């Protein structure tokens, strides 16, 4: 890998995000238009049909494929590509967009992440039988497998997880487009019914509908659009074996995050993540996923997450705020959109436009992280002010 191949060469000049939630009255076309046109307006595009040269989209449950986006926005007579990579889909679609601009082929590119899981009428991936083995296909089941060994090794427990849920619920009340706006207590979390041990109802993020979009261009052209553009400093994707098949798995970390973090930090020149990064959006599909991410992203030592959770390091007012808009937990999780929504939050925070949830101290470097599948795939994006 050439670590500086794209570093600071591409700028985000506009972003949009639809309301996330159970959008019964909106179809994919509605949400894609809402997000894309907010991005067009944010970038000051006078004629998007002239100016956008290529489109990269991401959806994990697409109903139509690339035509879903092309038809909604009438983006024809130009490339439209779809990227699929579990929960890293949005980040990966963004990554392809960035490559297409950095290589000099396109000046102005649109990235759209979207998903509409609620139309299937179930609150998550289907539990219907799909194979001989009849094993649970529930993400809550898959993502819980590190819990027993991690709790035993480091003396952590459900209470540490609960504090993460409480934090994200609080932050979500400050984000106008989030799905859930409700404060909860540690007691609420511990008393909730168990979904897949140790995850109770409040340890799990609900899937939701939504779309998010970005307009990107070469750094040299960014000032045509806006002065307060945000640069893309690093983009990483990494796969690891299925933790349930991997003979070399210790159940104390998620390998995809460890691998992707190494790539991203090499690209960005980051040696001390907790000091060098000002805020982060981290994949809290489940509370334990966020806890492990603190360690696997190098925000603290392996095993030390519970101490930092107690001392408030990752709260909105803390040293390294995590999930400033409420995360997957309260913002919602349309698989294809989430990566782009995280970049949207980091973009707004760096511009000082995060309103009631604005991180203090003029942040300049922000990280977003997604992990999905078994989990096997991780995507990381680092953005920074010029």
């Amino acid at each position, binding site marked *: 890998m050439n670590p500086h191949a794209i570093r600071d060469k591409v700028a985000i000049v506009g972003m949009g995000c639809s309301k996330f939630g159970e959008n019964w009255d909106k179809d994919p076309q509605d949400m894609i238009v809402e997000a894309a046109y907010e991005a067009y307006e944010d970038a000051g595009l006078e004629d998007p049909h002239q100016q956008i040269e290529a489109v990269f989209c991401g959806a994990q449950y697409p109903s139509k494929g690339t035509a879903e986006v092309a038809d909604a926005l009438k983006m024809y007579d130009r490339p439209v590509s779809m990227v699929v990579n579990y929960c890293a889909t949005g980040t990966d679609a963004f990554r392809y967009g960035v490559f297409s601009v950095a290589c000099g082929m396109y000046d102005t590119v649109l990235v759209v992440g979207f998903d509409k899981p609620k139309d299937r009428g179930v609150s998550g991936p289907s*539990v*219907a039988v799909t194979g001989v083995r009849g*094993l649970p296909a*529930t993400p809550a089941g898959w993502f819980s497998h590190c819990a027993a060994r991690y709790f035993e090794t480091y003396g952590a427990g459900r209470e540490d997880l609960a504090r993460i849920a409480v934090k994200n619920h609080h932050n979500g009340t400050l984000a106008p487009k989030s799905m859930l706006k409700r404060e909860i207590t540690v007691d609420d979390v511990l008393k909730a019914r168990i979904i897949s041990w140790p995850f109770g109802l409040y340890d799990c993020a609900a899937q939701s509908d939504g779309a998010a979009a970005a307009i990107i261009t070469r750094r040299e052209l960014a000032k045509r659009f806006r002065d307060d553009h945000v640069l893309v400093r690093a983009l990483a994707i990494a796969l690891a074996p299925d933790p349930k098949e991997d*003979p070399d798995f210790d*159940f104390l970390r998620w390998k995809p995050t460890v691998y992707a973090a190494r790539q991203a930090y090499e690209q960005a020149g980051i040696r001390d993540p907790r000091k060098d990064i000002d805020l982060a959006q981290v994949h809290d599909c489940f509370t334990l996923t966020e806890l492990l991410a603190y360690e696997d992203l190098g925000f603290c030592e392996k095993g030390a997450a519970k101490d930092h959770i107690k001392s408030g390091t990752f709260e909105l007012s803390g040293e390294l705020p995590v999930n400033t808009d409420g995360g997957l937990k309260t913002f919602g999780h349309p698989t294809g959109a989430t990566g782009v929504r995280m970049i949207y939050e980091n973009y707004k925070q760096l511009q000082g436009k995060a309103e009631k949830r604005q991180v203090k101290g003029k942040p300049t470097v922000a990280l977003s992280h997604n992990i999905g599948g078994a989990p096997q795939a991780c995507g990381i994006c680092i953005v920074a002010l010029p």
Partner: protein
Amino acid sequence: MVERLEGRRGVGWHLARRAELPSYDLYLRFRQLLATEHDRRAGAGISATKHFRDRDDDVTLAGLRCRRCGCLQYPRQRVCFRCFARDDFERVRLSDKIGTLKSFTFDNFAGSPSPPLIATVVDVEGARLYLQMTDASPKEVQLDLPVELVFRKMHDAGGTPNYYWKCTPVR
């Protein structure tokens, strides 16, 4: 020939390890005499070609030991997890071995006639198997518990019975 088979588990062996069902309701659900939200007969069923292709994995529970580095792995791989050697394995039957529990969860969301479904990752001489645990209660489950492997009917998707392995505590 059957008389010469070693370690046969007959009716006696199974009866000695039985779990008493706490309710008639549960019996009806297991016998599929009571409609449930998750119908185990639902679904299009698994393709016959896939059934046939996966028989070594699913019926024999055959692992593969890499001849180059010795890593035992499951299910069937072409390329070794550890040393990346291609197509250099020897077949090892896993079903008569004792395993230890590496991880577990109690899944109330997965379709099961008797939740929670105990999902485990079992280590068998280094190979990792993702298996349901049967004939056990969550109270007995702990890390590093020794387990043995039993062949069970999993479901009737597509109207065809499907069999696979589960783990159960060594008694």
